[in-house]
């Protein structure tokens, strides 16, 4: 079974900020600007995880965002990939063991790709999303069914 039709046409990405300082979020927005223009590759931000193929998660997971991140992950249809953007999401960064932090993202949901940086450049974010697609294609090729 190959990739779903919608997947071959375009890659829809849902952006979740679980407690970031907005640095990574601004770089994600920069990737959408005419300078980088990811939409020319069919990559576009969507307003709901129910339409998304990839979750782009920024920031360490604060305690109020913990159940919300889990819920958003559950609401994303399979096959899906999770890309963590920035150092805080990967390791909690400067917020490590802070009183209001539940932990890095991979302690809450499974992560496929890490994009390090504080914040990472838009090129790195685009590269991370492309790696996520490659991973999904590999999963599909090895017989992991969608749905």
């Amino acid at each position, binding site marked *: 079974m190959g990739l*779903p*039709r*919608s997947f071959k046409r375009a890659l829809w990405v849902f952006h*979740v900020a679980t407690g970031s300082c907005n640095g990574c979020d601004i770089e994600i927005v920069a990737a959408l600007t005419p300078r980088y223009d990811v939409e020319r590759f069919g990559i576009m931000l969507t307003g*709901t*995880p*129910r339409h998304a193929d990839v979750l782009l998660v920024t920031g360490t997971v604060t305690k109020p*965002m913990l*159940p*919300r*991140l889990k*819920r*958003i992950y*559950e*609401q*994303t*249809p*399979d096959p899906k990939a999770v890309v963590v953007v920035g150092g805080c999401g990967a390791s909690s960064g400067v917020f490590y063991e802070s009183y209001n932090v539940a932990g890095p993202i991979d302690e809450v949901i499974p992560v496929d790709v890490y994009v390090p940086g504080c914040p990472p450049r838009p090129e790195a974010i685009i590269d991370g999303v492309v790696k996520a697609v490659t991973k999904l294609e590999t999963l599909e090729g090895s017989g992991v069914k*969608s*749905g």
Partner: protein
Amino acid sequence: MNGITSGFGAWNPIAWTLLFLGILIVAFFVRSFGRKDYKRGTGQTKAFLSGNEEPAAPAGLHVSGDNLYWGMVHGLSAYYRRVREWHTGDLGDYVGWFIGVLALIFVIIVWGG
């Protein structure tokens, strides 16, 4: 096809049925582009409320049709307030209004005629 044609338009049930069938086919065609691989009974089929939990509806909650007209009732609230005052619930009052309006119409007809 037989139909009714007048100066105000045309009516033909077969043509309308065919039109509705055409619209239905187009609607199903567009719908077929949608994803079919959502897992039922999981979060994938629940409403997305910015990650928040969907609040459970209180027991016995019934949203009545009045809610559709809320804007109109609110917009005409001054009128409704006045009209409600006249609704005393006394049948004698209603008959009195009936006779009064009837008399007024009678006077207008006689005066105008």
